[in-house]
């Protein structure tokens, strides 16, 4: 049911039955290292190319989730998935092997929440009883897609971010499954916001206005205060983006500074060289939600979270043509039932 300007209230509140995550070496050694399910110390993951490795990260995250629940892939109705590569090849080739009906998504770094949103809507309206949502990214394949070759000796500006290597996956099931797990209550798909930022190495600044727009709209539509949530979690705004988002909200006299958290800031040790402003990529929020935050929810240290993933929808071609960076943010409210 649509409420307010653009929020949907899910009256059947689908459940997030299980999650699973797989990450690369840098993430495994980061502050959240202990929470991830699969940690691979090889960025190639035994494959010949980075693209294949990215596929394998998603594949092992999904396989691990099925294993946890003792399910087979035939039992899954649909999967919503996406990544950062051209034509979404990481997800495409991964799901080729799984034989699950597939919806390919592109929302840049917002893909995971977009997938979560759509799969919960699917389950909510009864079109499926077991729907997967997944997203992946890989530092090396993303650098190839968007930036300079890895071996090129160049410096990154302090506002640059480091793409997370890995994948996260969540399984959505109808509410009548007997199990105490977090449920999805509201989703707020975002509009595309573009404040004219053109700098590819300052994505936080390009995406913060989209996060602001979606968060404010969500709070207004649901008539909730920021304090209602134990945490408002953004995907990959990084240091700069976080500061900007908090200030934008403050100018609008909404204070989110006490509840706001950013996966990009938490997944890496920000003092490390080359991390600069923090993590980014589809896998940033996907892996961090599927491991750390899901566990926090299950163990009731957090009870109500608003997951907001931001995505920058540019391509090297549009940047080459002098276009600015359009951004989108999707929000999903995940809560423990009392």
């Amino acid at each position, binding site marked *: 049911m649509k409420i307010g300007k653009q929020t949907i209230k899910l009256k059947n509140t689908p459940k997030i039955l299980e999650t699973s995550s797989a990450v690369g070496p840098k993430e495994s050694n980061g502050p959240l290292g202990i929470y991830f399910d699969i940690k691979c110390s090889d960025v190639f993951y035994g494959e010949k190319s*980075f693209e294949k490795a990215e596929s394998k990260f998603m594949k092992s995250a999904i396989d691990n989730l099925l294993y946890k629940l003792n399910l087979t892939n035939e039992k899954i109705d649909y999967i919503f998935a996406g990544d950062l590569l051209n034509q979404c090849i990481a997800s495409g080739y991964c799901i080729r092997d799984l034989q699950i009906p597939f919806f390919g998504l592109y929302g840049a770094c917002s893909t995971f929440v977009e997938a979560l949103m759509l799969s919960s809507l699917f389950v909510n309206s009864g079109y499926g009883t077991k729907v997967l949502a997944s997203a992946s990214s890989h*530092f090396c394949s993303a650098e190839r897609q968007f930036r300079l070759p*890895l*071996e090129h000796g*160049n410096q990154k*500006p302090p506002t640059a971010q480091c793409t997370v290597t890995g994948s996260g996956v969540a399984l959505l099931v109808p509410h009548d499954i007997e199990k105490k797990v977090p449920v999805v209550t509201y989703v707020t798909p975002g509009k595309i916001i573009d404040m004219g930022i053109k700098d590819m190495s300052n994505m936080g600044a390009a995406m913060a206005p989209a996060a602001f727009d979606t968060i404010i709209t969500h709070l207004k539509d649901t008539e909730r205060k920021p304090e209602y949530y134990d945490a408002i979690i953004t995907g990959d705004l990084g240091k700069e983006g976080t500061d900007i988002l908090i200030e934008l909200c403050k100018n609008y006299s909404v204070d989110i500074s006490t509840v706001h958290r950013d996966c990009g800031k938490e997944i890496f040790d920000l003092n490390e060289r*080359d991390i600069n402003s923090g993590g980014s990529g589809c896998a940033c929020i996907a892996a961090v939600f599927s491991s750390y935050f899901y566990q926090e929810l299950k163990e009731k240290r957090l009870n109500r979270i608003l997951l907001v993933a931001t995505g920058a929808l540019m391509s090297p071609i549009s940047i080459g043509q002098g276009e600015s960076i359009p951004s989108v943010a999707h929000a999903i409210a995940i809560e423990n039932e009392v």
Partner: protein
Amino acid sequence: MFSEYLYVFITGGVICSIGQVLIDKTKLTPARILVIFVVLGVIFTATGIYKPIVDFGKAGATVPISGFGYSLANGVIEGVKEKGFMGIFTGGVTATSAGITAAIVFGYIGALVSKPKLK
């Protein structure tokens, strides 16, 4: 002897520092910086500005990519002197052929033996 190396060091250092200022202040990509330097090298050589810098700084002025422009411009001018009109087409690349060939050959071999790796 020592003062020669000092001049080389200073000249090379100053040219690279100019590049660093461009990178940090203008957000130009490395490819653009290289293009700017090589074209400036050609122009400054043609207008006679670069020659004194090379005389002073030697390798400090020829090793930076602007030195590549210096070789190109010198080569084409000499080519025109020797061969007339045809020299416009042959002079520049002839003078830099060793560098270009070396870059392709070593580049190819380097790529063959190396495997991509995360830093």
